[in-house]
């Protein structure tokens, strides 16, 4: 009974569930919370990229008896963070492998004293050779991880790429690079931890995945599951930056709590958060593409490399998504993608909205424009000739069984933006103006949810229950961090049962209360967890109808009365559902073949960019995003996701650069890491098409990451349109534009003395 033709609540812009508290300033983020007897923690970090730790000394002007000091030897369980591989230490033990790696932890009642004490710890190092780039790591002359620096590799093959080169009408090559990107959530990472022998470890924190943290703490403390409790506090932005890092921070605070005997709060300031926590993986993608005389793709040979930093953390899964998104939304009979993630001695890279897709979609969508220019076809037309349609197969031989409406999205985006009209106008105006304007497009998909059999492996459990004071309560581990989890899931439950939106609340994301419905990542929440809530809600109604006298046609009060009858009989009113894979999902993890994702969201972006040849600055003047995302559960929230993702994508393309010196982020202050302000973001026009996906909650697919995939290639394509110069590396700063545009100038620059 899903995807109703008309809905009362799903599809309407009900206000954000926790909105009033946020607006009143009473929502409680972790730094707003105090625990009695709380101490404060701080971290002593490596100042070198790779070294043996020769000695650790403590300045005698500090009375260290006031402090608790924790080092690796104090860890009761395993000294590593549980993720895909357990190769990242919780605390460095004898060796450091990146700048800002945590070595020692300090706690003290006074948060200023503990901060100062960090500067009073003297660490001496015996340096080892570092590795700072993909190219250095690939050479494998200095091995800094495993036997060969290779964190992960994939090989995806379809058809026979090498059979095509000899006869192809056109062969075009290109290399594309993307830099690191910092999440810059406005709330820094922070946790509070408590420890007691009776209850074990309790952690409150700004985080996305309470059960990831739970799992990691079990290993660090060697405790059984009921002796670790993780509670998400109101979280001020995450974007993937609080997917894995909180496991490390929570372990640190909990170790200090254990050793000091006090609750410990650890809140990073911006300087520390920027330097020491995860960022988006830098990448390099090389394309070699064969086309026939009509501009149809014959073969794609793609080589992808990412920089994973010092430990593998999420590099394997980021590489997977990068691989699967690298061929673009096109039909191509022969595809080979070789992808590798390389270790360097830098702060480990991690999850960030898009998770590998923004990197390789930048490459393929820039490359399509380069191909168009090389063979003399309009870049729009080139895409049309190669778009996937219903029934086509992807590079992994997945058949498009759900509708693919790229042509419609493209048509709409071109019409809304007056793409051709503006291009003509700019072609006339540019020669007479110091402002050169251009239009650029990008077309792409984003796979919703986990790859292949990922959801089966997660085996998510979610449910609903009814509280004694008459509220339906959603029980999920999915967290709210601005993207709308609380609202969307309560909308779905209210719709399914026929209640008011205000009848439904959501339980706190507390591992002691909620089942493990999986991590809040991969744009899976509305689709996968939403479906579980939809099913659990309907299951509750069916159960009440069967056993508690709820009539077939029931009113709101009938429902709550039946709930009380059920509570009287059973002591509780609860309904849980476990994930069921849609039929026909076949995925071969070895050959990388089959249904890579259960569903795809599709999008076309158009950017209008102005390049000022006096200052070499590029600015986005206007932006259009047309997307098909399944059922839109809440249009205000969904629109906000698209706009916010595009703003981040604009930052990724033109403003945000992580400047590393010896592997340390030198621009680790907000004054020097530049994100767009309210005066920099352009008007953004958003249009949704909806093709309900029957296996998603009320037809929903993923929305949150999709919008970050398109801006960078659309913008750089527009810059090529504006200036005639193609740029293949982001972030593209005025200094980079200057170098290239000056090289094209005919006026010679007089030699400077």
């Amino acid at each position: 009974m899903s995807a109703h033709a008309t809905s009362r609540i799903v599809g309407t812009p009900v206000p954000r569930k926790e909105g009033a508290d946020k607006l009143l300033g009473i929502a409680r983020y972790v730094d707003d919370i105090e625990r009695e007897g709380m101490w404060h923690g701080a971290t002593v970090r490596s100042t070198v990229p790779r070294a043996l730790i020769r000695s650790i000394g403590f300045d005698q002007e500090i009375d260290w008896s006031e402090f608790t000091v924790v080092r690796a030897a104090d860890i009761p369980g395993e000294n590593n963070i549980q993720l895909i591989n357990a190769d990242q230490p919780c605390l460095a033990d004898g060796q450091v492998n990146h700048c800002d790696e945590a070595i020692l932890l300090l706690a003290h009642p006074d948060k200023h004293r503990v901060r100062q004490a960090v500067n009073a710890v003297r660490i001496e190092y015996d340096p080892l050779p570092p590795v700072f780039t993909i190219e250095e790591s690939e050479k494998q002359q200095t091995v800094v991880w495993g036997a060969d620096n290779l964190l992960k590799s994939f090989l995806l093959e379809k058809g026979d790429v090498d059979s095509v080169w000899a006869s192809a009408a056109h062969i075009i090559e290109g290399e594309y690079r993307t830099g690191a990107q910092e999440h810059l959530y406005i709330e820094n990472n922070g946790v509070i931890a408590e420890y007691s022998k009776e209850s074990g470890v309790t952690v409150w924190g700004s985080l996305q995945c309470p059960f990831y943290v739970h799992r990691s703490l079990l290993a660090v403390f060697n405790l059984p599951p009921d002796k670790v409790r993780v509670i998400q506090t109101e979280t001020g932005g995450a974007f993937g930056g609080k997917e894995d890092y909180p496991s490390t921070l929570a372990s640190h605070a909990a170790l200090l709590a254990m050793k000091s005997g006090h609750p410990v709060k650890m809140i990073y300031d911006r300087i520390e958060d920027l330097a020491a926590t995860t960022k988006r993986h830098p990448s390099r993608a090389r394309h070699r593409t064969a086309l026939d005389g009509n501009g149809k793709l014959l073969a794609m040979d793609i080589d992808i490399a990412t920089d994973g930093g010092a430990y593998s953390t999420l590099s394997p899964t980021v590489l997977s998504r990068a691989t699967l998104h690298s061929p673009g939304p096109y039909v191509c009979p022969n595809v080979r993608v070789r992808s590798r993630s390389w270790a360097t001695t830098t702060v480990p890279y991690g999850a960030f909205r898009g998770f590998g897709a923004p990197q390789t979609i930048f490459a393929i969508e820039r490359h399509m424009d380069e191909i168009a220019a090389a063979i003399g076809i309009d870049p729009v037309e080139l895409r049309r000739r190669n778009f996937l349609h219903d029934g086509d197969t992807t590079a992994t031989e997945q058949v498009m069984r759900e509708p693919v409406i790229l042509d419609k999205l493209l048509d709409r985006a071109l019409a809304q933006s007056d793409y051709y009209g503006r291009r003509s106008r700019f072609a006339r105006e540019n020669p007479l103006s110091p402002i050169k304007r251009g239009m650029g497009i990008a077309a792409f998909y984003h796979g919703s949810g986990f790859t292949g059999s990922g959801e089966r492996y997660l085996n998510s459990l979610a449910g609903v229950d009814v509280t004694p004071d008459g509220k339906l309560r959603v029980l999920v581990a999915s967290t709210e961090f601005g993207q709308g989890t609380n609202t969307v899931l309560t909308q779905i439950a209210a719709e399914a049962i026929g209640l008011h939106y205000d009848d439904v609340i959501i339980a706190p994301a507390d591992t002691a209360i909620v089942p493990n419905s999986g991590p809040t990542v991969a744009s899976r929440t509305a689709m996968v967890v939403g479906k579980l809530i939809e099913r659990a809600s309907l299951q509750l109604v069916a159960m009440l109808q069967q056993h508690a006298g709820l009539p077939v046609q029931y009113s709101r009060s009938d429902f709550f009365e039946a709930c009380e009858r059920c509570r009287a009989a059973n002591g509780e009113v609860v309904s849980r559902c476990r994930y069921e894979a849609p039929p026909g999902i076949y995925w071969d993890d070895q050959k990388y073949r089959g249904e890579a994702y259960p569903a795809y969201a599709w999008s076309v972006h158009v950017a209008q960019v102005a390049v000022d040849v006096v200052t070499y600055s590029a600015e986005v003047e206007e932006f259009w995003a047309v997307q098909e995302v399944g059922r839109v559960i809440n249009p205000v929230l969904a629109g906000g996701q698209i706009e916010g993702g595009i703003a981040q994508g604009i930052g990724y393309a033109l403003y945000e650069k992580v400047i590393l010196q010896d592997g340390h982020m030198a621009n680790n202050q907000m004054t020097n890491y530049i994100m767009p302000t309210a005066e920099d973001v352009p008007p953004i026009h958003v249009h949704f098409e909806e093709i309900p996906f029957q296996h998603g909650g009320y037809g929903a697919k993923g929305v949150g990451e999709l919008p970050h995939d398109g801006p960078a290639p659309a913008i750089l394509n527009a810059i090529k349109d504006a200036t005639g110069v193609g740029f293949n590396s982001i972030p593209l700063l005025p200094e980079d534009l200057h170098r290239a545009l000056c090289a094209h100038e005919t006026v010679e620059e007089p030699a400077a003395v």
Partner: protein
Amino acid sequence: MSTLDTTISFIVNGESRTVQVPPMKRLLDVLREDLGLTGTKEGCGEGECGSCSVRLNGELVNSCLVPVLQADGSTVETVEGLARNGVLHPLQQAFLQCGGAQCGICTPGMLMAATHLLSHNPHPNMAEIREGLAGNLCRCTGFIRIFESVVAAAANQTVNKVASGPAHAR
């Protein structure tokens, strides 16, 4: 040498308050720690993000950059002072309707910047709105629905973004 505390008296959200604190303690920390007003947030400590914005003698300032001594004898308005008796200020109502808050961490500062803007300029155009909010960074919204919220509040009407569909129960 450890500095002695000093007495600071000021009017915070209309109420007289007095604290004993070191003169260099940041106004931000005094609000949060000594007065328990945790609505004002710290995002950067450098005066870049604006999440610590308050109105000091009616002027928008970054409270992370104000030594509390300089606020002695002043009026301070924070987000907690916007709503009256639990009723949302029109600006808060507009943010709720238009989706101006996502994760909410920039929201208190953003609301203070917006009230400051509207108090000086009740009918700002888009350029003036952008300038008025340029010191408040939001990483979630891309600012678009924040602009819409300010426009809606300035027009003193709620903007209904629903294209079609029945009214829902509240």
